[in-house]
Every structure is written in C-alpha cells, then in structure tokens.
C-alpha cells in the first residue's frame, strides 16, 4: 500500500506489504526437488510488475532461471543468456542494482541487440536486483513491467526483503538444509564475513565455497552460524586444506 507523499509525518522503519508477507511465507519449498516454492505470479502481483525471474550464477555469468513467471520473463532471461548482454549481466558485473523504469530512455548502445527484442516483447521497465553476500554473487532477480515508471516505495522494500529471503534459501539449499534456523539478518554480521575470508585461505577455496563450508559445518553441528564464525575469528576452529572437516583447537597442540 502506498501512501501519498507528505500525508503523514510519522516515521516508520520498515514496511512489508501483507501480500508480500504471504509470498515470503510460501517461499520455502515443501519437499520435492524445486529450489524455491510458491507462485512467482503471485509474487509479481505483490510487487506490482508483470513478471519476474530468478536466475542463479553459472560459470561466472547469469545461468538458468530457477523461478520465473511464464512468458516474457523467461524469454528475457533466454535472450540475455544468448546475446550475452542485458541488465542481468550488468547487475552481476557491477554487483549493484540496475533499475530502468523506462527502456525508451535507455541509451540504444547500452544493450544494442537486446533493446529491440524487449520492445518486441512490449517490455517497458526492467528492475534487476543482485543476489549477493558481499563479494559473493549468487544470482539475479529480474522484474519487468509493460508500462514505464519506477517501482513504488513499498514494492522496493518488498523486493529487497524478497532478495534477502532468496539469498538465505539458496545458501541453505546449497548445504542441503532446508530448515530456516536463522533469519536473513545473520548475513550482515561482521564475524560471519571475516570468518568466510579466513576459511577461504585455510581451506584454499574461493569465497563462495568458504561460505558454504562455514554454513555446512554450523548445520552439521546444530550450531548458529554466528557462533561458528566467532570460533573461526578467535582461531578456536580451523578449516584445513580441502576443508571438509575442520579441526577444533584445544588439547590437540599446535
């Protein structure tokens, strides 16, 4: 629900629309092989757009869509993949948002092959949100609309909250755990990211794998990720080469 500007002086921290709350509730897959549950069309409706797609990173670029509304959204993902250009690729490159509320006003040289195709699909506005944790890029959420204009303030809040939920789910799924133990906010805790950096050096793996090693260990031990991260930063826990099983320091010497 949007409120006309200046109608109230009351400050409010965060607002999630009731419709988005329902979408978020259904996001966890109920068994089966799907990565993301719930209905993408209901999600698009809650965001006030005509379609959406979530694509995960594959070989450093935008890969398969794992959750999408039928029609132009899937086509848009396909085109970007085939042409190797577009807002999704730019989002991954810059690790920032690409918000184009009116594609008619985009420099034709920006995506020369893609823009005519989008026009043919009657897509007029595109909004891309990176799924990332610091430098670790996991994927892109792309929204599109057939009418130009920015997202409403509430839709922008909803989209950012959705992105947080998607990131948590992708990470949980990667370590084979679908139960939510901690909210998405743990992804902002400093120690978790310091520990990720440390584990990547200890185990000799890139940052994304280090992040998964850390989470997998936490899940295996039934401990909060933040607690495990604190142990790594305090050097009470060490992930050696290959890193699958960390060693706890203690009576072990060294």
């Amino acid at each position, binding site marked *: 629900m949007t409120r006309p500007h*200046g109608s*109230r*002086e*009351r*400050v*409010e*921290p*965060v607002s999630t629309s009731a419709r988005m709350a329902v979408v978020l509730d259904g996001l966890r897959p109920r068994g089966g092989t799907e990565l993301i549950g719930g209905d993408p069309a209901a999600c698009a409706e809650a965001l006030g757009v005509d379609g959406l797609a979530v694509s995960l990173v594959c070989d450093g670029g935008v890969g398969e869509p794992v959750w999408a509304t039928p029609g132009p959204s899937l086509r848009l993902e396909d085109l970007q993949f085939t042409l190797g250009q577009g807002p999704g690729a730019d989002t991954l490159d810059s*690790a*920032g*948002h690409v*918000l*184009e*509320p009116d594609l008619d006003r985009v420099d034709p040289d920006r995506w020369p092959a893609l823009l005519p195709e989008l026009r043919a699909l009657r897509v007029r506005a595109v*909004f891309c*949100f990176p799924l*990332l*944790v*610091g*430098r*670790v890029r996991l994927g892109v959420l792309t929204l599109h609309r057939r009418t130009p204009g*920015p*997202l*409403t*303030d509430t839709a*922008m*809040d909803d989209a*950012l*909250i959705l*992105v*947080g939920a998607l990131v948590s789910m992708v990470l949980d799924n990667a370590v084979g755990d679908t139960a939510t133990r901690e*909210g*998405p*906010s743990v*992804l*902002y*805790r*400093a*120690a978790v*990211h*310091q*520990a*990720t*950096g*440390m*584990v*990547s*050096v*200890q185990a000799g793996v890139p*940052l994304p794998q280090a992040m998964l090693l850390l989470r997998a260990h936490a899940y295996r031990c039934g401990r909060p990720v933040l607690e495990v991260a604190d142990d790594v*930063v305090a050097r009470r826990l060490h992930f050696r080469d290959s890193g699958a099983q960390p060693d706890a320091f203690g009576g072990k010497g060294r």
Partner: protein
Amino acid sequence: MMAAVQQEGVLRAFLDTVDTLVEDDFDLIDVLHRLCARSVEFLDVAAVGIMLADPHGDLHMLAASDESERMLALFGAQSRQGPCPVSYRSGQPCLDVDLASDHKTGELAAFAARAREMGFVTAHALPMRLRRRTVGALGVLHTAPGPLTSRGTRLGQTLADVATIAILQHRTIEHGNVERAQLQNALTSRIVIEQAKGILAERWQVRVDEAFRTMRSYARSHHARLDEVSRQVIDGGIDTERLRAGAAGKAGKAGRTGR
C-alpha cells in the same frame, strides 16, 4: 557547555564531509569512519558508531570511531536490542541511557551489561532520518555519567543527518527510486570489507582489526577506496604482500623506521 572553538570545529568537519561528497567516487566507509572519529571529539564522548538497517529491519554497524574487534562486537550485539534499535524504531533520540544502574532487565539489559563490561557508563542514540522513515541510528558511548546537553543532542542529530546524506549521496545508481537500494549497497560495501579483512588476517596470521588498519592505511596512502581495495584482495587482483609493505612503508615514514 560547548566553546566557540568547538563549534568552529564542527562546522569544519561538516564542510569537510560535504566537500568529499562533491567528489564523484568517494570512499563511503572511510568518510563515515572519519565522521565518527570527529564526532567523538566534538561530542566529547568515548565512541561513536553508525548503524544502518537491513531490509528486514535489523541494524548493522557501517562505521565506528574505533574499529577494534570488541567495538564491532558491541555494536554487532545491538542488531535488535539496545539504544540504537530503540531510536531507529521510534524515530526519536534515545538519550541518557544509564548503563550502570538501570536496565538490569528489559530490552536494554543485554546491551547494557556488555557495554558496562567495556567500561562505558552512558549511552545515547540518535535516529538517522530520511523524510518519513528512519534508516538507522548514530550510537554514542560515554565513559562518564551525565546527560547529553541539548546542544550535544542537536549536534549529534546534525552528524546523524550528515551520515544519512553521505550514504544516499554515494553514487551507485543513476535513477529511479533508489534510496533503499543505496542503503543496501552501503551494507554490501561493508560486507566486502569484512570478507577482505578475514582473508588478510589469515594470510598474515594477525588479528582482523590489525588487517583492517593495514588495509586502510594502504588505501589512504594510495588514494584508493577501501571497498575497491577489498574487492581486489578478494579477487586476487592485488599482491597482498605488497599491500602490507605499502602500508608499512607509509607508517614507517610517519614513525621510526624499523628494520
């Protein structure tokens, strides 16, 4: 009571920050760190930190006057409970929190106990406001008892407002309603720095706060942005031994030459 010379200093800090904001590509986290350090001076307090809300409404430290591990942990513990979240949720200042005597129970208890352990006696928080909403809070810690004067409160609020402007001014997106996305980007910048700190701490076998100091000193002496240097550390685009030597070389010039 604030002397005239202090007010002059505040004005200078304010202008310094505004001056930086005019640059195209300023280093947000470093600007905020400097702002916190100046705030400590002007408010005559022990520590100042800037906390920003994530899209879910939890607060996270973006910069602090003192970036030691224990200070990061103290602000980190204020994610949902403490003067900063109280101020963020109400949109009002949360002033004169007596850490020593009050708050044995209730919402501020856990934070008060931690802060007390670190020798702080009083805490304040001022909301970071953006039109009709709050986006975070400026946290103030003091080792002496006593209320923040009304002048101090006004000054603190100005500093909180400058911090908000800095975050939103940071040019990451060209158009659209971008403020919320910009807040998100500011949090991401901070995360990238934390990841790089971890890599350097492990590679050099030092504490994470020492890794941060070295990286910041390198960034400053090379006129590079902290988040950019962090990104290079993570992507392997920078020789971390050279980074260490570059930072040490700078420090060596300032102090005595070692080795």
